[in-house]
């Protein structure tokens, strides 16, 4: 990903995932980080994204509905391993 102008706050917000995914070209990564140095709002935004991702990672795994799991178990019991 390459960008050709100075980054505005709105660009930062749109690029935050590319930044966190290490998908920005090195020069753009530098400009992204330069913007953060002078912009408390965007620094906060980045920290919020990181906090959101970390919190999402602590969610319980979603479970299958019990009846569906039971049907899968029955298929598993009826299956003879090759």
């Amino acid at each position, binding site marked *: 990903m390459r960008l050709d102008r100075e980054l505005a706050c*709105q660009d930062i917000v749109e690029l935050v*995932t590319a930044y966190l*995914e290490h998908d920005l070209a090195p020069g753009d990564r530098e400009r992204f980080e330069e913007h953060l140095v002078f912009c408390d709002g965007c620094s906060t935004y980045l920290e919020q994204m990181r*906090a959101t991702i970390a919190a999402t*990672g602590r*969610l319980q795994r979603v*479970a299958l509905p019990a009846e569906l*799991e039971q049907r899968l178990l029955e298929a598993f019991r009826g299956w003879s*391993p090759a």
Partner: protein
Amino acid sequence: MSELLSPEDARLVEGLRAGEEEAFRALMREYGGAMLRVAQMYVSSRAVAEEVVQEAWLGVLKGIGGFEGRSSLKTWLFRIVANTAKTRGIRESRSIPFSSLAGDDEEAVDPDRFLGAGERFPGHWAAPPEGRILAAEAMEVIERAIERLPPAQRTVITLRDIQGLSSEEVRNALELSETNQRVLLHRARSKVRGALEEYMR
């Protein structure tokens, strides 16, 4: 079996091949709900998605004997679900959700919130103390926000941020381009952040 497989995956695969119910339960605990979310990405109803998971499961049982571990177990598993669901989705003659993605220029944050290009982002939401964001209530806010997402976004954030798959694993399992994967993840995370912001206000 491949050395690329983690010891846990290798044990699960051996257990499934041997017909052990404990291996089945471990697999469902880890991946069951995510399998259903993957299916929901391609078909129109929850009921059909459940049928897809059942059908995909028969495919898993059929294929597990020959599974060589060239990809991780979860990538392989989710790909079977995705392929089963795509076939079913085509049968349902419902367009694949990504077809609409190209012209979709939804912003992560409402542009009205920006005063101008040079202005600071006004959403000052002080970095929350760890305790607050982890409160049970906040976790529910996150869960509800994820449930409300469009299916493709919900699937990608589930696989990346809850199940811990890498972007490459998600792209392989769902056959997404690098850009699509990132865009879906970005929109999903942005909405979850937004829901937390509302809650913290």
